């Protein structure tokens, strides 16, 4: 079975890298990880009386243990959630544990039957959600959906969420994960740089290419990408293809129908991307750069465009000049696109779970209800500079950074033209193989035809392994 790949994983590479590097001693004994996989245990769960303001029956003085993946979003936002929770239950002792190594921390405790109460199960060392669900380790969060919203008790929490949140959090028929962060994907540029040169946002791929020619003449590389992690360029390629072929094309990719790679949308997309390589529009060295190196070069005006998800602004907070005016735009349109220019990849990610054997599972769900209040969403948007699945939480009065603001605008403009392929979550080997092919293409070592051939073979392989 495939694993769950969570897009924000890659922007935390630097942290993960340190973690893996430190783990060198553990590696020859990788088998050790499995040492206590098959033991078990149990604990008692605490519940109290359910009331209108306490819909899950949280015991007021029961402790709450929160484990947060400390990656691109940091962990300050979680501290603000914890404060909001403590306001409700002043007697409760809230424990806050930030980590980059979710698996290492969580696996033994799940198997030992004494897990924490809320976990942000994210990052490179994430425990795969489908596996947890099948093992019966996750609390069914349906009561959360049906609980009254903190902001408006006449509404259920379910009614305050972005469309798709419930579907995405449902695994094996139960809603057991809260994918909290709403991320959009596209190209990013500096509003200041563009104004300075009188450039405007290219709406079509032809415009993008001619603008790239101009940018190059101005002595700036038109395009940078995070070459060391081909995840990013894969997103750009697939978004072009999906906008060209429409939702039907995407569904067939997700179903691992290998014939899509023989068809026009895939061919159009990869040939378009290849024009960047053949016209020499890449930032020199970008193919070997980490996400931080490439994005920082972009922040230094060495490159005009970079593909990324909406975590970019928070990730580059320190490297971004104050007048940079980070701006988001959808992938430009190819001729014959089935979806409009405004269409973007967008979806919920950053999965939060309440382990089934958590002592204070009710408290865990209450914590999530706090996250899903407007106060929670604003806290997140301000400390982590990203949007959440809480619908219409950010009024015009909420102060946001320019990049985050531009994603709010883009999301509004996209309307219902938001897509989110799921092959990433269900066929991890396809993503890895496609990434290898894309790296080779960007380095000029293979041509589009070879890319299509390889990805088609990878799809066949993923289908064979996955079922």
């Amino acid at each position, binding site marked *: *079975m*495939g*694993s769950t790949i969570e897009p924000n994983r890659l922007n935390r590479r630097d942290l993960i*890298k*340190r973690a*893996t*590097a*430190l*783990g*060198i001693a553990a*590696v*020859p*004994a*990788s*088998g*050790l*990880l*499995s*040492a206590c*996989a*098959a033991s*078990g245990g149990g604990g008692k769960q605490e519940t109290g009386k359910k009331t209108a303001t306490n819909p899950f029956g949280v015991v007021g003085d029961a402790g709450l243990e929160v484990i947060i993946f400390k990656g691109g979003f940091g962990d300050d936002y979680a501290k603000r959630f914890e404060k909001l929770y403590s306001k409700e239950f002043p007697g409760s002792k809230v424990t806050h544990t930030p980590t980059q190594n979710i*698996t290492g921390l969580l*696996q033994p405790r*799940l198997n030992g039957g004494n897990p924490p109460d809320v976990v942000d199960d994210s990052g*490179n*060392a994430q*425990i*795969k959600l489908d*596996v*947890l669900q*099948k*093992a019966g*380790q996750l609390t069914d969060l349906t009561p959360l959906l049906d609980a009254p919203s903190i902001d408006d008790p006449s509404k259920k929490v379910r009614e305050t969420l972005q469309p798709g949140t419930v579907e995405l959090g449902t695994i094996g028929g139960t809603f057991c994960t809260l994918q909290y962060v709403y991320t959009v994907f596209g190209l990013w540029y500096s509003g200041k740089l563009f104004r300075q040169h009188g450039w405007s946002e290219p709406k079509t791929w032809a415009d993008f290419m001619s603008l790239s020619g101009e940018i190059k003449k101005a002595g700036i590389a038109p395009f940078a990408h995070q*070459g*060391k*992690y*081909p*995840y990013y360029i894969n997103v750009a390629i697939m978004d072009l293809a999906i906008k060209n072929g429409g939702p039907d094309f995407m569904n067939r990719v997700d179903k691992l129908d290998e014939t899509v790679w023989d068809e026009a949308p895939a061919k159009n997309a990869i040939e378009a991307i290849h024009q960047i390589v053949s016209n*020499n529009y890449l*930032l*020199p*060295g*970008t*193919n*070997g*750069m980490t996400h931080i*190196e490439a994005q920082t*070069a972009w922040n230094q005006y060495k490159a005009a465009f970079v593909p990324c998800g909406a975590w970019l602004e928070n990730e580059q907070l320190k490297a971004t000049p104050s007048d940079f005016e980070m701006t988001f735009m959808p992938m430009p349109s190819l001729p014959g696109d089935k979806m409009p220019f405004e269409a973007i990849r967008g979806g919920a990610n950053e999965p939060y779970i309440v382990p089934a054997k958590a002592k204070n599972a009710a408290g865990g769900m209450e914590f999530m209800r706090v996250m899903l209040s407007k106060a929670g969403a604003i806290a997140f948007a301000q400390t982590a500079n990203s949007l959440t699945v809480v619908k219409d939480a950010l009024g015009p009065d909420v102060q946001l950074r320019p990049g985050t603001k531009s994603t709010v605008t883009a999301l509004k403009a996209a309307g219902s033209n938001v897509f989110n392929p799921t092959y990433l979550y269900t066929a*991890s*080997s396809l*993503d*890895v193989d496609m*990434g*290898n*092919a894309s*790296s*080779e293409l960007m*380095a000029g*070592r293979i041509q589009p035809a070879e890319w299509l051939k390889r990805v088609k073979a990878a799809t066949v392989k993923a289908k064979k392994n996955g079922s």
Partner: protein
Amino acid sequence: MRHRKYPFIVGFLIVPVALYALLVIWPYLQTFGYSLTDWSGESTVMHFVGLRNYTTLFSDTVFRQALLHNALLLVFLPVVTILLALFFAFMLNVGGRGGTGGVQGVRGAAVYKVVFFFPQVLSIAILAVLFEAVYRSDGGGLLNGILQKLGLEDPQRPIEWLNDPNLVLWCILAILVWSGVGFYLVLFSAAMQSIPKEVYEAALLDGAGRVQTFFRVTLPLLWDSVQTAWVYLAIAAMDAFALVSTLTPGVAYGGGPDYHGEVMATYLMRNFLYFGKSGYACAMGVVILFLTLILSAVALRVTRRERIEF
């Protein structure tokens, strides 16, 4: 007192042996058990699949490629590291010829010894950060920066060291050698200092040059240390996980570009944690264990020579 000997020995051994059995032997046995299942890594549910993981493994082209890379490291890492360490150790201890005919190292030997040992002090995490800057793929990198300053490289076409299929493995090898030489230099130095000076003086009186002294006197008397170094370096060559997973490109534990930097350990981890094929990864772990064991046995056996007493 003879009857009390065994309780005495057992008393000393029981704790370390018990710890070793619990923390090393038992996990290995468990790994072997898991390698016969389709365990996904995060659940207690698994099915017995017999030797299927092992048969799959031997037809897995990526694994074979990774194995080849480890084999290349296995050949070059010990040879290059030991030769360099021996050369430097010799120069630092007996290579000097200045002064009044005594046996001594080159001028400033004490300083060099400390300098050479520096890399060994750095943790592998720091090495990774350091060499990310050395091999950086644009003019900001140390190597590319120097090449561009010297006019040997077009700034528009920098060498992408770790993203070049022909260079990536050698870049990793260079780091392993750089960080390893200092330690073996100190090891060999210590061994050289225990060789009596008279032996060298005798060789000098007989008119032996530096090269002859080295091959006829130093090397045979150092053989024990060289042998130990060989085994350690061979084991290191079978691993290389930390550097490959942090420095080479690719989704989940590097190994790129397009598997040209892959080693067995990174492929194992990708399968273990990323693809959810933990049973399969355990099979790789068992194979790596046996390869390493065989290797150590062979290395010790092949390099066995008669010990020279002095």
